[in-house]
């Protein structure tokens, strides 16, 4: 009697939390940072939608192949947004409550001594660059997808119609009676 070996399905690999872009995860508040991070997620979603519009073929295959590279970039944007939201919850502006407290200081209006924006160790620039990079990828995908539908050998319809108009005019001027008489001329 032979013993049938039981095949055990391998554990599915844990899904990358950034594989599906979600502007609400991680939670980075409701303000500026979430809006910028939401733009990053939008770029990834746009990339997926654009890939879906493409017909099966090597170009679509290449875009699908490149897709796993993107969650890492989104994850970096998420980390930047999280740190920025933690350090600067009011966005790239001074906290209004802090400004009010300093303005009420009995010695002087201390809020005037502050610069209008808090010192930023480059978080905003880095996050905006990450968003721009993700959008550049999505836009390049769109440009490639449009090229799939280009037809460099398209028929020159204007030349065709101009020729047809000339044929009709010549035939009528030659006195061929009535319509649908151009079998020989064309």
């Amino acid at each position, binding site marked *: 009697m032979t013993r049938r070996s039981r095949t055990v399905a391998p554990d599915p690999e844990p899904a990358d939390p950034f594989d599906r872009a979600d502007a609400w995860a991680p939670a980075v508040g409701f303000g500026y940072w979430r809006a910028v991070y939401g733009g990053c997620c939008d770029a990834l979603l*746009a990339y997926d939608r654009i890939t879906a519009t493409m017909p099966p073929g090597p170009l679509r295959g290449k875009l699908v192949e490149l897709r796993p590279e993107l969650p890492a970039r989104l994850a970096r944007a998420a980390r930047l947004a999280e740190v920025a939201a933690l350090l600067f919850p009011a966005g790239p502006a001074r906290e209004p409550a802090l400004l009010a407290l300093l303005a009420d200081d009995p010695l002087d209006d201390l809020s005037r001594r502050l610069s209008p924006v808090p010192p930023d160790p480059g978080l905003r620039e880095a996050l905006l660059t990450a968003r721009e990079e993700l959008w550049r990828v999505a836009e390049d995908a769109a440009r490639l997808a449009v090229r799939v539908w280009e037809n460099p050998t398209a028929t020159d319809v204007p030349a065709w119609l101009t020729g*047809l*108009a000339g044929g009709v005019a010549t035939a009528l001027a030659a006195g061929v009676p009535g319509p649908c008489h151009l079998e020989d001329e064309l």
Partner: protein
Amino acid sequence: MSAAVDRATVTVAQVPPGAVRDQLDGVLAVLRRRLDRYLRIAEIGQALLPDDETTDLDGTAPGMAPYLDGAALEIDLRLRAASAHLSAVAAAIEQIVVTDAGYRAPDEVVSAVGRLVGVPAAP
């Protein structure tokens, strides 16, 4: 764009069978394939920057054009040119049919068609 092709289809359907009709049927077939390509390009534009005319949740009120730049703007300009091209071709077909039916002077049709289809190139 669909309306322009529909307009051309209706016009060509009025032409009796013959060489002119055959030629216009050929042009119509090209227009239909071209329309199909343009619709695909519009799908890509919608995938890149969706604009839902039934809601303002996408950032623009119904009937309001979204702000476009980059690839989305390129696609929009391309589709506008495509729309102008299809409309011009549909109008040119009408001119030819009207002339062929004897309702217009033959020497006018060449310049009229040239004017219509000469400006917007097929994208």
